[in-house]
């Protein structure tokens, strides 16, 4: 019983992390029709930034570190979008290749700057003590992480559904040309959304640090998970990313615990299932 509950919680926290990663990916894809293969690298960059900040300044709050790393990664993402991606507006394949090239550059730069050894990220001190719920002992940090993901999901939902910016983004997703015609600055929206997506990934990287730690190859580990989540949930759908993240979180955690060698195979079973019966994903719209 203890095993199932602890693994269940681990699944939830991994799902939360995956949501922080894949929501940005899904958002960028929805608006820009761009499969941003740099996303795993943004996540890893966030983890390294967070690890460095938390280890060099004692007593730095992890939330402040996540915010700072998120802003830094968002700035890098914004520069990349402005300087490179906008030049390739009419060339979607070129855009994907450029994001792939950028992910190689970032991951190699991380290897150069931080070396090949994993850098552990300390768990915040006030969250180190376990929490007791109904006689079960939970690691507090993982609970908080799930809360963070849900919080981020709610904020993103309100941002997209209840604000003017969100309305413009939705208009751009539905019909880019018409949105331009009625005076929505779609090109600027692209930059905003790209920064937002990159920033969430970067902040997610910091928050995931205490669980995953920063190591070379983190990007290559996370990117396929993000891809599987969005293929499963439906590309461009926030709800799809949310549900997909937790499904994959559960499958991956239990897969690793029960059949460690086959975890990767089990991971893509739901993907195949969804692609076979609902190619647009669980919550994706046809044509999106």
């Amino acid at each position: 019983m203890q095993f199932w509950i602890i693994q269940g919680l681990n699944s939830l926290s991994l799902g939360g992390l995956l949501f922080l990663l894949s929501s940005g990916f899904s958002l960028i894809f929805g608006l820009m029709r761009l499969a941003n293969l740099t996303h795993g690298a943004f996540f890893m960059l966030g983890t390294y930034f967070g690890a460095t900040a938390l280890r060099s300044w004692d007593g730095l709050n992890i939330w402040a570190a996540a915010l700072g790393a998120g802003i830094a990664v968002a700035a890098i993402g914004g520069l990349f979008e402005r300087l490179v991606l906008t030049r390739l507006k009419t060339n979607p394949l070129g855009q994907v290749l450029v994001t792939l090239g950028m992910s190689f550059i970032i991951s190699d730069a991380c290897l150069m700057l931080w070396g090949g050894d994993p850098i552990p990220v300390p768990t915040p001190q006030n969250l180190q003590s376990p929490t007791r719920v109904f006689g079960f002992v939970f690691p507090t940090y993982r609970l908080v992480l799930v809360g963070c993901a849900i919080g981020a999901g709610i904020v993103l939902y309100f941002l997209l559904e209840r604000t003017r910016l969100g309305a413009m983004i939705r208009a751009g997703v539905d019909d880019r040309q018409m949105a331009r015609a009625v005076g929505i600055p779609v090109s600027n929206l692209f930059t905003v959304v790209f920064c937002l997506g990159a920033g969430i990934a970067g902040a997610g990287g910091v928050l995931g640090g205490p669980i995953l730690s920063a190591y070379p190859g983190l990007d290559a580990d996370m990117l396929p998970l993000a891809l599987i989540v969005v293929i499963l949930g439906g590309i461009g759908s926030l709800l799809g990313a949310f549900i997909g993240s937790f499904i994959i979180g559960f499958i991956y955690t239990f897969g690793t615990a029960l059949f460690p060698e086959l975890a990767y195979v089990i991971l893509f079973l739901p993907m195949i299932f969804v692609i076979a019966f609902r190619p647009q994903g669980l919550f994706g719209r046809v044509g999106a």
Partner: protein
Amino acid sequence: MKWIGAALLAASFLLPPFLAGDFYINLASQILIAAIFALSLNLLVGFGGMTSLGHASYLGVAAYISALLTSRYGLGHGTSAIVSITGTTAMAACFGVIALRATGLGFLMITLALSQVLWGLAYRMSNVTNGDNGIAGLTRPMPFGISLDSAASFYWFALVVATLAFLMMATFVSSSFGSSLKGVRDQPRRMAALGFNPWMIRWITFVYAGFWGGVSGLLYVYYNKYIHPTSLSTTGSAEALLGVIAGGSGTLGGPVVGAALVLLLKNYASAYIERWNMLLGVVFLFIVLVMPTGIVPGLSRLLTGLRRGSR
């Protein structure tokens, strides 16, 4: 003019074993292997309009199957080559059914995810694949009793396979099936309206490309006598894709030129700097931003322009 070009081309492939030292002959063999791999990817990317980021799967899986069968189960090279090519082609058939549910970016993402799964498996199933240590101590086959252990003999072997591959893929794209493939790439709806089955055309091409990817994988493992999970990594797929796009996708000569360039760059760069991945990324940015149509189409446009100017 055309004949001189053809003679020069033939000479550049036939002369290396007589003129150059072992290092350059080996480099030439590697170029041939990379060229077969890039040509097979080009069937998808250039002629089929299906950009795959998981092509290393076929190279890696064929290499792993052959390595496991010869080293662990003691099978002969002939049998293991047949099993590994058949297995790889069958895997391409399954992957094709999955990946071709989508087109465009969805297709790209699914191929990438599938290949990452295989890469993860190669690392983690260490009791089968020996994990990060890879499988070492493999041998080269001896077709008709001829040893391929010297650099020159392996080069001839690779050249024969590469020529065969080039001719067969050239026939494939210039056949009527190849025309319908290009039609499906450009106008899938019209092709469907004309009574073609776009899905089936794409799927057959996918399987055929997987077959030649497997062949290049066999050569790869024969050449290296060693196999490691990096042969399945995205970097491998990306290098081949870069070769295709840098050389010129949708042309027959382009991928060969591109693959050669990527390989030369990799060899020479790694002698001076350690950061091959970063360089690869920079070259990606450069090619896409500066030469989006590739070198071979660019050069041939330049040549026709010159010819017109000289007349």
